[in-house]
């Protein structure tokens, strides 16, 4: 089981999602990907996509306007 942190702070909407999609392809089922974001649109699109793709998703608000999206690949 590995865990990867993806720093997407300062990146606008589609970039965190595309990076997360690529990062998840390299991971095995059960691995965890933590995506750090500060773009409110990505906070919506990223978890939505990941849930639709069947992964477990949790969102943590670290600071006002800063989130960690925790994705467990299934």
């Amino acid at each position, binding site marked *: 089981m590995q865990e990867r942190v993806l720093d997407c702070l300062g990146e606008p*909407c589609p970039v965190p999602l*595309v990076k997360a999609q690529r990062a998840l392809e390299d991971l095995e089922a059960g691995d965890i990907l933590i995506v750090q974001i500060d773009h409110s649109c990505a906070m919506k*699109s990223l978890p939505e996509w990941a849930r639709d*793709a069947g992964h477990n998703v949790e969102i943590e608000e670290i600071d*006002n306007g800063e989130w960690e999206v925790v994705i467990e690949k299934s």
Partner: protein
Amino acid sequence: MAGIKRHSHPRPRRHRSQIPLGILFGLLVLWIGIRFLRSSPTLAFFWFTGIAFGFVLQKARFCFTASMRDAFLTGRTRLTKAVLVAFAITSVGFWALMFGAHQSGRPIPGMAFVAPLGLHTVAGAFLFGLGMVIAGGCASGTLMRVGEGFTMQIIALLFFIIGSLLGAAHFRWWDVTIIQPAPRVHLPQLFGWFGSIAIQLVIIALLWIAADKYGKARQHAATGRTAQK
């Protein structure tokens, strides 16, 4: 954190409540609005509708850029469908306003916005699309994210202003040589009042179905690929 067990600890939270600040800001907006109302009701109207629109845009995360871009980039068409539904609703609304005016013999509102149609429409739309994907937001979206404090889009806004000024400076030339000679197309004049709204709604419905099918196909392909691994 109930479900997922992570090894690393999340960074310490520095989350503070923004509600007191929000109330303060709300009162300020109201106070400025009332001041506007005394000098010019139109200004007050713009002030309140502008802020209301921004509020809805921010809370609903209604992103025109994502509605066009995500279908290609990530295969998600939820926003595409949402925008199509919005188009359908506004179509009916505008149609009702125009048809109502036509029936009672008043001048039809909004006819000044029936712009000449031609290749320049396609070229402009393409450039706008290119710009909004690179900048990470259309005009309203960029403004909304500047308000949220996203630094990169402050730069986008700066160049948005520079570009608009440049455009405004030599718009006359484009207008006279290319735009004005092109034909103005108003659908009700072509297909009749009921024909035009029917055709418009059917086209929107077909686009919605296409977006839905495309989104499901992309989703299916993506999950199929993960399952094979």
